[in-house]
């Protein structure tokens, strides 16, 4: 069972993008995602596309692999394109098929929206492809640190996030073990009518829930035994430091943004 389930999308590597500070990556992608919606002519779209492609190449992950990861959204991209061909009625009539007119404006609009869509998904998936979930969590904790001042529990949330991430594989193994144990007793929750499948899943869920409760109890006890008492004065195992390369990338991104802003019409 666990073989067929892939949690997360991280691809290990040592590319410049992999080594970039996760905070920098999040900030750049966040700004990029907003800026996509401000592009309004082919020059500004080209600048963003070039930046996205450059980032993709710099990850040194095989493009075919990235495209395969985007498979579920291809359908959507094509769907939006076709929808625009049908709905938009601007510009000149280019072709008429069976009394149905396709306008030039529709093709441009369809391409624009599909491209916007593609760039958005490409850039956000670059983040999860090149950054481990745990470094994203560290980065978020660091970025939101100022919120501590208004008593928003940033540290606690980040800690919980790390615990969750740490326990997903453990729980997965456990599920695998229990489902095999129950299967050997004849429980079958993959075939048969839905009512039977739901009934069959209960003997799998009960031990899982009980064991999750027990694990939590044990972990809480272990943390208390080691004197955990909140974020105050706690030191870190993984520290984030901005490097020269990060600043270089930031300056490059700002230049791209300036170029983008000038090119908008």
């Amino acid at each position, binding site marked *: 069972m666990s073989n067929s389930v892939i949690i997360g999308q991280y691809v290990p590597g040592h590319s410049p993008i992999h080594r970039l500070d996760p905070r920098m990556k999040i900030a750049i992608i966040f700004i990029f995602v907003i800026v996509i919606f401000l592009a309004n002519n082919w020059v500004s779209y080209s600048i963003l596309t070039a930046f996205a492609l450059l980032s993709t190449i710099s990850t040194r992950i095989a493009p075919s692999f990235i495209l395969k990861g985007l498979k579920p959204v291809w359908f959507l991209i094509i769907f939006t394109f076709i929808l625009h061909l049908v709905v938009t009625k601007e510009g000149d009539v280019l072709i008429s098929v069976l009394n149905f007119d396709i306008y030039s404006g529709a093709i441009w609009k369809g391409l624009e929206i599909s491209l916007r869509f593609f760039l*958005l998904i490409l850039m956000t998936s670059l983040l999860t492809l090149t950054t481990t979930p745990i470094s994203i969590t560290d980065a978020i904790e660091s970025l939101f640190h100022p919120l501590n001042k208004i008593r928003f529990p940033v540290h606690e949330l980040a800690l919980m996030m790390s615990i969750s991430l740490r326990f*997903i594989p453990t729980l997965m193994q456990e599920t695998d073990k229990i489902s095999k144990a129950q299967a050997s007793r004849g429980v079958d929750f993959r075939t048969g009518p839905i009512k039977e499948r739901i009934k069959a899943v209960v003997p799998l869920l009960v031990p899982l829930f009980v064991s999750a409760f027990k694990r939590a109890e044990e972990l809480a006890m272990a943390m208390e035994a080691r004197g955990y008492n909140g974020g105050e004065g706690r030191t870190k195992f993984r520290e984030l430091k901005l490097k020269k390369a990060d600043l270089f990338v930031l300056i490059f991104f700002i230049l791209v943004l300036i170029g983008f802003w000038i090119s908008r019409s």
Partner: protein
Amino acid sequence: MTNQSKVLFLVEVAIFSAFAILLDELSGFLTGRFWPQGGSVSIGMLPVLIMAFRWGLKGGLLSGLLFGGLQILLGASIYHPVQGFIDYFFAFTLVGVAGIFAKQVKDGITNGNGTKWIIYVILGTILGGFLRFLCHFIAGIVFFASFAGDQNVVIYSLVYNGGYMTLSTLFCIILLILLIPALPKKYFFAMTART
């Protein structure tokens, strides 16, 4: 909350959020991955609801928030910044609103009042499920308005999101009713004095 139960609260909510991710991944056995644009019939809400009924509103909201956040970290379907925010942070956090009935559920279980806790579990789950549906519904409109600009956006989003949400909520109710009596009772005893 004493320091001891505070740590237990943090850890338990964290582990149950991980559990939610796991159940969400495994839910394919129910109807398969029929919904192409993200969202599917899933029992991922189950651990969130259990946390909501065990720790009250705070536990429910927090584990919902973590569940949504984890999905983003592990690669979620984000097509638009606003849609991503509503679909993951708001939607799953609001499942935890089921926790407003925590007290009644625990009272029912503690006193062995079968009908009482079942009624409030159903009410809570429907409320949480409905609020989550509302978020996906709005996010669906935002998404389609920004990419398609079609006029039937509202109906489309209603049918698309309503479909899997109705089934998911229904499955969660059935499983909760079967599951809660089978779990050790100590997890659902009224703990008002401790929290």
